C-alpha cells in the first residue's frame, strides 16, 4: 500500500485505511441494510454487508401453517412485488400437488404479474434516480405507479399486499370496466416512459454517474448467482419466463433486453426496456384472453405425498424460487425461499471493489434490493 504513495506523503503523513459505517438507517440503502466500508481515501477496498435486521422467520412460520394459510404471508417478502411472490408459492404448491390451472386463470395471472413488475420497476426507477440526485423523477415514478395500485384495488381489493391468487386458479374475474381502464393506462404509460428516458438516458450528468460504475463481468455475474435485470445487464440471457417457462408465458411474444458492460447504466437500460416488454405482454394477454373457468379443481384439504419440488418464477428482482419439502401432511415440512435480492446483494461485494464511495449509493440502487426479501 505504502509503496504506491508518493515519497513525501509516506514520510510526512500517516495514512491508513478507514472504516465507514453506512446504514442501517441510511436513506439510500432502501431499508435496514448496513454496509461496513473499508476505505482508502475515497476508494472502497472492502465491503462487509450486515443484513438480518428485518428477519421475521417466515420460513419457520410457514412450517406451522397449512398450504392455503401460508399464501398471504409471502406477499410480505418483496412488498413492492407482492403479486409475483404470490405466483411463486401458488405455482410451487400446484406443482407439488400436480394441479391443473385453467388457461384463463393463467392469462389473468400473467396480466397481474406484469402489472406488478411494472409497478416494481417504476418504484425502483423513482428511488434509484432520487438516490443519484434526480428529484423530479421520484414524483413521476410514484405517480405512474398509482394507477396500477388502483387497478389492483379494483380487482383484488388491496393495493400493496393483495393476496392475489388462491391455490389452483384465480378468485374472481376482472370487474366490469377493468380491462378498458387497464388498456387506457398502458396507452398513457408508453409515451411517458419515453419522456422519462429523455430525462435520464441522454442526460450527461446521469451518464457520468452511471456509465462504468459498479461493473461486474459476465462470468462473475453467473458465478455470483445474480439474477434478473442485474444479471441481464451483464449480457447473460437468463430470464425464467423464457428459460424455464411457467404459466402462460410461452404463448407470448416478447424480447429479453440485454446489456453489454454490466455497469449501473446497463442495468438501468435493461429495466427501462423491460417495462416496455411488460406492456407488450399485457396487451397481448388482454387481446387473447380465453373464455372458460377461473377456479381450478383444488382440494379443500391439501395433503401432498412425501417429496420435494422447486419452482421458480421471474420476480421483479430476479429468479424467485420456492423449495417445498412435504411429509404427507397438509403443512410444508420445510419451505425454503430463494430470494433474488439476497443473492444479488452478495454480488455487491464484487461490484463495489475499487469504486468511489459516492458511487456506492448508485450501485446499491442499481441492484434493486428490498430488505423484506433479503432478510425474510
Amino acid at each position: 500500500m505504502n509503496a504506491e504513495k508518493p515519497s513525501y506523503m509516506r514520510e510526512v503523513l500517516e495514512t491508513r485505511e478507514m472504516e465507514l459505517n453506512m446504514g442501517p438507517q441510511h436513506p439510500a440503502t432502501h431499508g435496514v441494510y448496513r454496509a461496513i466500508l473499508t476505505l482508502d481515501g475515497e476508494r472502497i477496498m472492502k465491503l462487509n454487508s450486515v443484513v438480518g435486521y428485518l428477519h421475521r422467520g417466515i420460513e419457520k412460520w410457514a412450517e406451522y401453517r397449512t398450504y392455503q394459510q401460508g399464501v398471504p404471508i409471502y406477499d410480505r417478502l418483496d412488498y413492492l412485488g407482492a403479486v409475483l411472490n404470490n405466483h411463486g408459492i401458488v405455482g410451487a404448491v400446484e406443482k407439488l400437488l400436480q394441479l391443473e390451472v385453467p388457461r384463463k386463470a393463467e392469462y389473468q395471472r400473467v396480466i397481474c404479474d406484469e402489472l406488478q413488475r411494472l409497478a416494481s420497476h417504476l418504484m425502483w426507477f423513482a428511488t434509484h434516480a432520487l438516490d443519484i440526485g434526480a428529484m423530479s423523477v421520484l414524483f413521476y415514478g410514484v405517480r405512474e405507479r398509482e394507477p396500477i395500485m388502483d387497478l389492483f384495488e379494483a380487482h383484488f381489493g388491496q393495493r400493496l399486499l393483495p393476496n392475489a391468487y388462491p391455490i389452483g386458479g384465480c378468485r374472481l374475474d376482472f370487474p366490469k370496466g377493468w380491462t378498458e381502464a387497464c388498456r387506457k393506462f398502458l396507452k398513457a404509460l408508453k409515451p411517458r416512459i419515453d419522456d422519462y428516458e429523455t430525462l435520464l438516458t441522454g442526460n450527461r450528468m446521469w451518464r457520468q454517474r452511471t456509465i462504468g460504475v459498479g461493473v461486474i463481468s459476465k462470468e462473475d455475474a453467473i458465478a455470483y448467482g445474480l439474477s434478473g435485470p442485474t444479471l441481464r445487464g451483464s449480457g447473460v440471457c437468463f430470464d425464467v419466463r423464457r428459460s424455464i417457462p411457467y404459466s402462460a408465458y410461452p404463448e407470448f411474444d416478447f424480447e429479453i433486453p440485454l446489456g453489454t458492460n454490466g455497469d449501473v447504466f446497463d442495468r438501468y437500460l435493461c429495466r427501462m426496456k423491460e417495462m416496455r416488454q411488460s406492456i407488450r405482454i399485457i396487451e397481448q394477454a388482454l387481446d387473447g384472453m380465453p373464455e372458460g373457468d377461473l377456479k381450478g379443481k383444488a382440494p379443500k384439504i391439501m395433503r401432498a405425498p412425501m417429496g420435494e419440488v422447486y419452482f421458480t418464477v421471474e420476480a421483479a428482482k430476479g429468479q424467485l424460487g420456492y423449495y417445498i419439502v412435504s411429509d404427507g401432511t397438509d403443512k410444508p415440512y420445510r419451505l425454503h425461499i430463494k430470494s433474488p435480492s439476497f443473492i444479488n446483494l452478495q454480488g455487491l461485494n464484487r461490484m463495489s471493489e475499487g469504486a468511489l464511495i459516492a458511487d456506492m449509493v448508485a450501485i446499491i440502487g442499481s441492484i434493486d434490493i428490498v430488505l423484506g426479501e433479503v432478510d425474510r
Partner: protein
Amino acid sequence: MEAISKFIRMITFPELFKGMAVTAKYFFQRKVTEQYPDQKTILPYRTKGKLHVDIDKCISLCRFCEKVCPEGCIKVFPPPKELAKTDKRPVEFYINQEHCLHCGMCVDSCSTGAIHHSDEYELVVIDFKELLGDKETLPYDMIKKHYRWNYLENVPVKIKDSPLKEEEKSQ
C-alpha cells in the same frame, strides 16, 4: 463541422432543456394528488376493509373461517348440540382486527356469506383492545352511510361512484 456542433452541444446543455421541457409539460397538467383527510377517496367495490359478520346468517358449526385464518384472528363459539338443531347462530363470535391481514380468505371460505369486508379502512384506535370485535360490535352498521358490503354478490347500494365503479354496481 462535427467538432463545432459537438462543442455547441457541450456548452448549451440541450439534454437539460429537454428534461426541463418534460417537467414543464407536466406542470400544466391536472394534479393527481388527493388531499386525504379533507378529501376522502371513494374506494372500489372489492376493497378489503374491516371484517363484519352477519350473525343471523352464520351457521357457526362449520367454523371454516376459523380454520383458514392464517393469523388465527377468528374464534367462533357454536351453540350447544341440543340447540344447534333449530338455531345455528353462534353464541359468541370474536374477530381480532389487530392481527387481521385483510387477506380475504375467511370471506372466500364462508359458504353462507355471513362474514364480509366493508370499506372501513380507518382502523387506528387509541387502545388496541377496541379492535377485538364480538357479537354486538361485529354486525354491519347500516346507519354509517358510505360504508357498504363487498366481495360477495349480495351488494348494498352506494351513494356515488366513479365511472369504473358505476358499471360494477349494475353488475
